[in-house]
Structures are given as structure tokens and as C-alpha cells.
């Protein structure tokens, strides 16, 4: 086999069984790998009504066919499980080196089943797989865990692990690899914690083979030239993702103070330009990346001193304008803490913003404030509350359940800015209609990255669409969702799509695997994955009623700034979205659509 390694590793933590199975070639061809293969295996093996933190949930780590090759910016892996935060199918994507390490060790997927009696970690070195005691590691933060595991296994091993947050089942706990890279959304770190799995160390020496080296090289160089010429990709390299703060603010769609508004006058202080000037130390890149959007950030301000990676735009937004904070040092420090504790850097600060909103609106009783000074624009608060959430201490214990359950506990779920109970990211759906539809229909809940219409609604990458328009947006949202799913399934980073198009990915995949993929085949693989995820969610009990946004976005217009007065029109776009998707009026994939996608 070329591209794929041909083996799936299955580890049962309840009985210690380690088995290796051949990769199903038909599944690989149809679902590619990573998100696609992970979702296929998961939906085949796990009941949709499974309790996410029970031993019956499974945790699948899967790299893609591109992972471990020099396909540009395509060295990623995906984690799949049922999300304890949303109860939808959960999938989180991460870069770093871990995905490539899994390929070199010889695996297209690692399936973790059951639950260990006591804390364990896995050491995977090529064919050799050990389940080792991790009781001495339990409680360690992510950096110390990574160092300790390497010291006991191999200095060059790639380590994916959870921090205290995952151990304590915080519903926005992440899985971190290479310390700073994050499979963040959906609380999959809590699934790992519920299995008492502290870390996975991987090292491999096997080759990823290529069907047609000459064709692959030609396709890669052609693709690289496109990425090198793309201004968005180049901007990402120079300034990282934080550059977006200012443009979102200038169009008046930067959600501010828990979406009470969408314009933040001092946004520039936490924008990419300020990041570059005040805290940027070096640029960093994931495996095989040609963009290197990663920021190594170092804070010299003694109050918030430290070094780490980030903040990315969503984290910078959530700790910044969403909490009313404009202190770049505090924002950067809080983001570092998320990586160190193993927390999703969108859901955590967005939950903090909800807490602040509830406190300042009088619905969070003072005796529950845990001695904290809860108000907007408090830089110390965002750092301290992050710590308490990661360690589930004091107010952090309840907040660790995420903003929806927290707000619901106090009888006010309307304060939670979530879609399917996952905190929405940094683009105001009242000012930008397409991204609102993406939030409402995304299979893993409030998420931007699985259908990043911002590229054409705000960034002007190629096509320029009016963010305020609803016309034509359903088809655009579907196109982004399908293409992203294909890129995810092949192991790519979506930033590669600033430059590369389906033709490029299809050419590389064909040369690598020896299977001919047309650009349409490639995108259809993505559509296939999307529909399979949708089916799972429907079986889990979701309906069209759940394809929606918080009331605030329909009833409470933006208050100030250039987008003043706007609201979201998602409900008007849904019927057309179901129609272009080939679903019925209840948002259920029709038999014809499933047949077309070879799902039935």
C-alpha cells in the first residue's frame, strides 16, 4: 500500500488487549483517512446513544494519507469520539508531529476502547505496543507530562496527552501534542481522561511509500507555488492568525462582551500587529508545513511572564474582546495556560465571558463568585479563572462544564453563546450571515473552521461576497463544509486552501496512493463524511430544531459600530441549505443522497 500504512491498531484498556487489523481498502478509498476514516470506524462500531464519558465510547486517533509526506501543510491527524460537550459526533484536528509519528509507526488509526482500572499511558514504537502505569504522571500539567513520558520512552517520541483538565473531566478539556498543539474542541480530553489514559507516546521508523514519485513531486511543487503566491497564506506566516482582530472590528462584527455587542474600541491592542510587536519571539510550523502560522510568544511583563505558543485569533478574541479585555500580555498568558492545563482555548474563555455576563447582569449570586472580582476588562480574572477551570477548583469546577450547562444551572441558558452547546467562535453571525449558517449546521456544534466562509465573506480570498447577504450563502456554506471535510480526511490543514484547490489535492492524492481521484471525487469524499456525521447526530437524537443559534442573535441587534442594527437570518436560510444538501425538509439525508454517496 502506498500513502496508507495498511494497519489499524486497537487497544482495549479494560482488558489490556492489543490487536492489529488490516486497513479496509474500500473504506480508505472512500473515506481517505483522519476525520473520514475515524468517523467511518466510529459510526460502524459505536451506538449513537452512547454516554460520552462511559467506557463504551471510543477514542480514535487517525492521521491521513498525506500525513508523513511532503504534501504541503498536510501533516495533521484527527481525534474522533462522541463529544461530552455537545453529544454530537466529536472531531478535533491537530497539527504538530504526532500524526506523522503514527504513520511512521505503521498505523492509519489507533482505536482506544474501554477504560483502564488505574492511570495508564501508551508507548507505541513501531510494532511494539505497551500499556504502562501512569499513576506517577497523573496530576502533571502538559509540559511536565510530555517531558516525563519522553524521559521514560524516547527523547524523540511524539507525545499526545491530557493535563489536569482532562483528568478531571472538564467538558472543554483538550488533547495536546508537542505541548502546544491542540485537538481542542468538544472536550475529547475528558473522554481520554474518563478512560484513565494520560498520554500516548509514539515513535516510528517505517516509510510512507509513494505510488508515483515523479508525479507527486510535480504536484507538490505546483501546489507550493500557489500557496507561496497567496496573500492570505503569506499574511498568516508574517502575523499569524491574530491579524483578523482588526478587520472584524472595523466591519463591526467582532463579538464583544459575550456577544452583547460587536465592536470593541481598543481592539487594536490585542490584534496581530500588537502581538508581533509585543510578544512574538519566533515563528513555528507543524509537520510539513509551508506556511508556519505558529507563534512562539514570550511575555516580558512580570505580572504575566511566560513563554509558549499563540494566541491564535479565536483565543485572542475570546480572552480579549469577548471578555472586554485589551491587555495583550494577559490574553497571551491565559492562552498559554490553556495549553499547559489541556483546555480548549475557545470554549474556556467563551465560558468565562458567559460567567462575567451573568455576574454583571445579576443572575450569578455573589456568594458563588469564589472571591473573584468578576467584571468586564479584568486581565487578572481571565488568567485566574482559566487556572481554576483547568483544575476544577471553586467557581472553575462548575464553569468546567461549559457555558451552556453553567448558565442552565442558574436558570438562564440564554446567556450561553453556543450552538449545540458548543461555544461559538469569533465572527458575529449578525453581521456575517454565511458563518452563522455554518455555526448552526456544523456537525460538531458552534464551529467556524469546518466551514470557513469568512475566507470569502470577509477576507476577499478570490471570491468576494457581501457578509450581510443571505442570497446564495447556503450553497457556499455547503461547498466550504464539503471541501474542508475532504481536506481534514486526507490529513491536510485547511490553511493550505489559501492557495490550493481540489485539483491540487486530488493530483497529490492520486500520485501518492496510485488510486485516481478527480477533483470531484475528492470533494465528494468530504460530502460523504459530512453526511455520515449528520446521520450519526440524527441517530443520537438531534433534529432540525437543533440547527439554530442563541436567541440573542435573532432578537438583540448589534448595538454599536458599522454593523449596528443587524441580526442573524439563519432560519430563513435553512430550507435552502437542506435542499442544496439533498436532504428533506426535516434536514434528513434522502435515500437518493445516501445512495449517491455510497452510504447506503
Amino acid at each position, binding site marked *: 500500500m502506498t500513502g496508507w500504512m495498511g494497519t489499524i491498531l486497537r487497544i482495549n484498556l479494560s482488558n489490556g488487549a492489543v490487536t492489529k487489523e488490516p486497513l479496509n481498502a474500500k473504506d480508505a478509498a472512500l473515506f481517505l483517512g483522519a476525520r473520514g476514516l475515524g468517523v467511518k470506524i466510529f459510526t460502524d462500531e459505536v451506538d449513537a446513544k452512547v454516554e460520552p464519558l462511559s467506557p463504551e465510547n471510543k477514542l480514535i486517533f487517525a492521521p491521513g494519507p498525506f500525513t508523513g509526506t511532503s504534501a504541503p501543510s498536510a501533516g495533521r491527524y484527527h481525534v474522533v469520539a462522541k463529544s461530552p460537550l455537545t453529544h454530537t459526533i466529536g472531531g478535533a484536528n491537530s497539527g504538530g508531529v504526532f500524526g506523522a509519528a503514527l504513520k511512521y509507526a505503521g498505523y492509519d488509526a489507533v482505536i482506544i476502547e474501554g477504560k483502564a482500572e488505574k492511570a495508564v499511558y501508551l508507548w507505541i514504537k513501531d510494532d511494539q505496543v505497551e500499556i504502562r502505569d501512569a499513576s506517577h504522571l497523573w496530576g502533571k500539567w502538559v509540559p511536565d507530562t510530555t517531558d516525563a513520558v519522553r524521559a521514560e520512552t524516547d527523547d524523540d517520541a511524539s507525545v499526545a496527552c491530557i493535563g489536569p483538565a482532562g483528568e478531571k473531566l472538564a467538558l472543554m478539556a483538550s488533547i495536546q501534542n508537542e505541548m502546544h498543539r491542540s485537538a481542542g474542541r468538544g472536550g475529547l480530553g475528558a473522554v481520554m481522561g474518563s478512560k484513565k489514559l494520560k498520554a500516548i507516546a509514539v515513535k516510528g521508523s517505517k516509510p510512507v511509500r509513494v505510488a508515483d514519485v515523479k508525479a507527486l513531486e510535480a504536484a507538490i511543487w505546483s501546489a507550493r507555488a500557489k500557496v507561496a503566491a497567496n*496573500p*492570505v*497564506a503569506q*499574511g*498568516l506566516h*508574517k*502575523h499569524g*492568525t*491574530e*491579524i*483578523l482582530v*482588526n*478587520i*472584524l472590528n*472595523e*466591519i*463591526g462584527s467582532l463579538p464583544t462582551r459575550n456577544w452583547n455587542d460587536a465592536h470593541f474600541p481598543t481592539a*487594536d491592542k490585542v*490584534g*496581530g*500587529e500588537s502581538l508581533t510587536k509585543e510578544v512574538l519571539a519566533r515563528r513555528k510550523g507543524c509537520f510539513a508545513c509551508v506556511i508556519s*502560522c505558529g507563534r512562539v510568544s514570550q511575555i516580558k511583563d512580570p505580572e504575566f511572564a511566560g513563554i509558549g505558543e499563540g494566541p*491564535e*485569533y*479565536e483565543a485572542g478574541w475570546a480572552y480579549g474582546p469577548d471578555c472586554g479585555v485589551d491587555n495583550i500580555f494577559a490574553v497571551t498568558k491565559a492562552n498559554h495556560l490553556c495549553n499547559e492545563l489541556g483546555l480548549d482555548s475557545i470554549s474556556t474563555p467563551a465560558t468565562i465571558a458567559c460567567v462575567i455576563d451573568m455576574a454583571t447582569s445579576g443572575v450569578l449570586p455573589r456568594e458563588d463568585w469564589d472571591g473573584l472580582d468578576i467584571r468586564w476588562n479584568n486581565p487578572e480574572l481571565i488568567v485566574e479563572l482559566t487556572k481554576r477551570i483547568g483544575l476544577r477548583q471553586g467557581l472553575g469546577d462548575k464553569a468546567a462544564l461549559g457555558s451552556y450547562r453553567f448558565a442552565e444551572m442558574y436558570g438562564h441558558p440564554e446567556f450561553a453563546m453556543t450552538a449545540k452547546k458548543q461555544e461559538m467562535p*469569533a465572527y458575529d453571525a449578525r453581521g456575517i450571515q454565511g458563518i452563522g449558517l455554518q455555526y448552526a449546521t456544523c456537525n460538531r456544534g458552534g464551529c*467556524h*473552521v469546518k466551514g*470557513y466562509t*469568512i*475566507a470569502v465573506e470577509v*477576507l*476577499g*480570498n478570490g471570491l*468576494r461576497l*457581501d457578509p*450581510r447577504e443571505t442570497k446564495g450563502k447556503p450553497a457556499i456554506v455547503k461547498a466550504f463544509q464539503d471541501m474542508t471535510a475532504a481536506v481534514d480526511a486526507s490529513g491536510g490543514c*485547511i*490553511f493550505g486552501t*489559501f492557495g490550493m484547490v481540489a485539483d491540487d489535492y486530488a493530483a497529490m492524492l492520486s500520485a501518492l496512493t496510485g488510486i485516481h481521484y478527480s477533483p470531484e471525487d475528492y470533494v465528494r469524499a468530504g460530502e460523504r463524511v459530512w453526511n455520515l456525521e449528520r446521520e450519526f447526530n440524527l441517530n443520537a437524537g438531534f433534529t432540525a430544531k437543533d440547527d439554530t443559534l442563541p436567541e440573542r442573535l435573532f432578537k438583540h441587534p448589534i448595538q454599536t*459600530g*458599522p*454593523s449596528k442594527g443587524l441580526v442573524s437570518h439563519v432560519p430563513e436560510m435553512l430550507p435552502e441549505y437542506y435542499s442544496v444538501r439533498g436532504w428533506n425538509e426535516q434536514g434528513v439525508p434522502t435515500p437518493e443522497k445516501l445512495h449517491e454517496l455510497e452510504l447506503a
Partner: protein
Amino acid sequence: MTVKYFGDIRPLAGGLKQEEWRHPEPEVGVLLGALGKRHKPLEKRLWEGSQLSSTIIILVNGRSIDFLNGLQTPLAPDDIVDVFPVEAGG
């Protein structure tokens, strides 16, 4: 009117984040021409021949000129004009 600069545009405008433009210009194209004369490095960045560079976004009061009237978008004395390079987030 106020002109604001962002990202890589700032160094091209002599490092300015923003400036007050006291010369009322009738429309965007004319304003950009005048800005280019004031800041030479900016002039090269703004234009691809006689067209506005495809790697530039111009906002007038928060709206992209792509959805107003392009370079012919009229300007009022208290307008805010933003000059953005095409870049990204995530």
C-alpha cells in the same frame, strides 16, 4: 475624514496606524491617489496598473467598497476609510 492602516500597510504609510485627512476627497479612488502621493511606498502596494490591487481591501464606514460603488464610492467629510491587506485568521 479618518484613514486607518492595518497589518503590512502600516510600515508603508510611515508606520502610521491612522491619520486625519483634512482634504475632503469626493470619492475613494481620488483619496487613494492622494494617499499614494503622500506615502510613496504605499502607492506601489495599492495599484495593479490602474486597478486596485486584488490583495487590498478598502472599507468605508465598515463596508467593503466591493459592495458599495468600488473606487467611485462617494465620501463624506466624517467618513472612516480602512486600508487592509488581504490576510487571515482561524
